[in-house]
């Protein structure tokens, strides 16, 4: 059990990679607070994990609200009795259009992808310090390592997340708090479809999807558990000398 007795918070925990993370982390011995805006689904995740013998409770929060970002960490820490691991997984696809930039859509993408992680992490540090150290994992993206034609806004936000993780790593290394980012490529999740143009015809959508797959050396999209395994490794003491790293889980996409 690689996270035995670790106290963990995971955001965007109700589906996809976050959900896989709750299941996996709990199986490895962690006590998990699963955070999501979708009350019904996050409660279902907590119930399923508990039914499988794990420790997991649901916490409903809208991370677009900065006050909530502070509060949900403190609330989770009260439940857990402390904090060892935070996985900042919450995020959203960015806008496609930049020529007529929708400033509200832009602000939302930056706030959820960047600001929520910054506030949550900043709030968590005091708790991690009290535990004598800890591990924070961010979910960035391959779009945080190389450009993303489909959404410059998303790429901008995810590069920011990588920069944030590396800078936190430098600042808190002396306090044994590690900060790393997982950089998923295409993952089979409910969110994946949102990256494609909603106005495209069925043929255009199929062609776009085929182009995407053709760019992945492994020739397939990832399963959510494959990203959760990377987050688990970074969160665990196995990665005790790993900090400030942006780890691609991308089927070879950024090896080019």
């Amino acid at each position: 059990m690689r996270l035995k007795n670790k106290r963990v918070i995971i955001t965007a925990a109700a589906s996809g990679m976050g959900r896989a993370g709750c299941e996996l982390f709990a199986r490895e011995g962690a006590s998990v607070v699963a955070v999501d805006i979708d009350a019904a689904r996050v409660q279902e995740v907590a119930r399923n994990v508990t039914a499988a013998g794990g420790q997991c409770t649901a916490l409903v929060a809208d991370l677009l609200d900065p006050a909530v970002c502070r509060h949900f960490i403190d609330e989770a820490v009260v439940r857990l009795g402390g904090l060892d691991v935070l996985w900042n997984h919450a995020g959203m696809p960015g806008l496609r259009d930049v020529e007529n930039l929708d400033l509200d859509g832009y602000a939302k993408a930056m706030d959820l992808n960047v600001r929520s992680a910054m506030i949550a992490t900043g709030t968590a540090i005091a708790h991690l310090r009290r535990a004598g150290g800890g591990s924070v994992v961010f979910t960035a993206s391959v779009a945080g390592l190389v450009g993303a034609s489909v959404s410059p806004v998303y790429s901008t936000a995810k590069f920011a997340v990588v920069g944030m993780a590396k800078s936190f790593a430098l600042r808190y290394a002396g306090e044994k708090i590690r900060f790393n980012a997982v950089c998923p490529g295409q993952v089979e999740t409910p969110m994946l479809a949102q990256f494609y143009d909603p106005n495209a015809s069925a043929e255009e959508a199929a062609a776009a999807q085929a182009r995407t797959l053709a760019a992945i050396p492994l020739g397939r999209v990832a399963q959510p558990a494959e990203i959760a395994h990377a987050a688990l490794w970074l969160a665990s003491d196995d990665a005790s000398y790993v900090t400030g790293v942006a780890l691609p889980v991308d089927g070879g996409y950024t090896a080019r």
Partner: protein
Amino acid sequence: MRLKNKLALITAAASGMGRAGCEVFAREGATVFAVDIDEARLKEVVGAVEAAGGKAFGLVANLLDPQTCRGVVAEAVAKLGGLDIVWNHAGVPGLRDVENLDLDEYAKSMDLNVRTSLVISGAAIPHLRQRGGGSVVFTASTAGLVGASVSPVYSAAKFAVVGMAKSLALRYATEKMRFNVVCPGPIETPMFPQFFDPNASKEAAAEAQARTIAAIPMARMGQAIEVANAAAWLASDEASFVTGVALPVDGGFTAR
């Protein structure tokens, strides 16, 4: 057990990270074929793995000879009954001096750090293919990601290893063979002192070592097991969507 029934070849297995690799791979269920030039210490490693309930074979070999490299793979396959994992860990510090480059020493450094890994990987590929895929791990260095003032030769060789791994990843991705690199920072091993000037005074040597540690955000050197854990993760099916990645295990050194 994350490497249950896996057949693994590890080079430079008699000490430091390679030795830690033999121990952790075997503990995770792999049968290990351990290769080193140092017969006495290799025997000791195989004995230690067996004493802990693991399975290991040892083979003494000088990997500077390309024919030997091919022979090592053939022998490993014969003993193990196949091959799933190769950890190309063998390497040597490079020269410090570039103004009066010693061509023999240069060739030795490039041969052991680069050619050996390419010959072994090339020879291993048909065997991995026979098993329906596999995972190859290389040991590069942070000097394979950023320059190394102390030894441009070492850095050149390790950048080459990173390029090799990424290119092999692209070429063999569809055959379910993954190729990744661990990039250790300064690790407490028998090889580590060799990176420093042998002609330096005791004070100068201590000062150089202090400067090295001062450049590491975590303010300590890594332990061999911390690198072996990274190699084990990359070798395992948990990293099934990870290929062409150069993973720093460096206490935050390259986060700058």
